[in-house]
């Protein structure tokens, strides 16, 4: 998967899981204030991302620092790069 495909996939699964209008899924969108997600949604975000991308998400500093959709894209891309040794 290219980086663009991965980002599209992240947006797709989150839009599906949380019933978010895809037009609102911009990189600067804040999960809480712009997308209306809460702490319970954060639990399910881990579940759907792990199921989708097959890597383990632990509550590292990098994960805790995620505030925007763009932050999440970067986090997932970095984890995939680590996993593939890149």
């Amino acid at each position: 998967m290219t980086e663009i495909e991965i980002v599209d996939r992240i947006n797709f699964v989150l839009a599906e899981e949380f019933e978010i209008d895809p037009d609102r899924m911009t990189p600067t969108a804040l999960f809480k204030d712009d997308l209306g997600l809460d702490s319970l949604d954060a639990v399910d975000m881990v579940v759907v991302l792990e199921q989708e991308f097959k890597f383990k998400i632990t509550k590292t500093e990098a994960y805790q620092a995620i505030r925007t959709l763009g932050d999440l894209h970067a986090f997932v891309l970095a984890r995939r790069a680590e996993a593939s040794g890149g």
Partner: protein
Amino acid sequence: MTHAYEVAITGIGLFSVLGRTPEHIAKALRLGRSGIVVDPERSALGFASPLTGLLPPSLDDPRIGRKQRKTMPDFAFHAAVAALDALEMCGLDTSDWRNDESGLVFGCDSSCLAAVDQVSVLQERGRTELIGSGAVFRSMTSSVTMNLNTLLGTRGACWTISSACSSGGHAVGQAFDLISSGRQERVLCGGAQEVNWQSMCGFDGLGAFSCRVDEPTRASRPFDKERDGLVPSGGAAALVLERLDIAKARGARIWGRVCGYGFSSDGEHISVPSVNGLARAGAKAIRQAGLTPADIDYVCAHATSTSAGDAAEAANILSLFSGSRPAVSSIKSMTGHELWMSGASQVAYCALMASECFTAPNANLENLDPAAQGLNVISEALGRPPRNVVCNAAGFGGTNSCLVLRF
């Protein structure tokens, strides 16, 4: 209590094995049509009885979003659908419920499948973080009221009563008490019951279920001499109870009134009902309603089609109505035993009968059990509506609920 307010029924919602709409359900009740089927999976799993009530499909409902659905087991979804139907019927908008005077009381005594599911997911995925956010809310018996509170924004009473098969009856009774005493102006109440084999396997193991597999629709036969056990069933029933003066002032349709609620417990056996518990509750309820037993023209019996239970209820009814012979029928002859839901659904079914001017039969009654001799159990629908009604519900542990309704 210095003043008792009168309490009106202004909305009804049902998710029943007899159907989804009041019209459909009323027709089934009038015709004595059964909602019981054979579930072959139960036989394969080692159940003694594969019989169960069959609910309509749980299609998505546009009024309930995906996020809300995550925290709802099926029975809470059914309760939410029934509740929203009842709300629409009563003519109150959801904004009318967002205040301290509006509450929720439901009856429910299990959320077995959700508990089983979360364990399976943990074993499959290996970390609790991957169970998902909804499991904890789905696996509580109070799932119905916690979800409805979030969905509707009510700000008054919000709790679930667990008292086995009298849960729904006590829920309606307590809702009545809360309004009658002036503590709430309106309460959305009812009962919900999961329908899945996981929640029923232990009960099946008691040998309490009917094994009349060749005639599923005739398996539930309360008060019949040839009855051989109950048929597990479920769904959800919701009722809007409202202070009568407020309901009248806003021009609401009054389906009927709840006029009395009596409760008692047996203090005897954990599963065998006593010969006087329901009668003691009934006497209290009738007295509170300002009536005498002779005024009651219909008893909507708890009778589940078990040998011991029906005989005990017959003894209770005979002693309570020693000088009169009200019509008696058990709706469970058609629905099967809706368990936690049944005490509330009986109220909804009675309101439909009153509205459609008939009294539902005790289906499948061919030969009255000797223990019920003297009871006026009606094997065919009566072409007259019930007027002054007693609704019985009894649960494991010997907990009894009796409601008096007037139409």
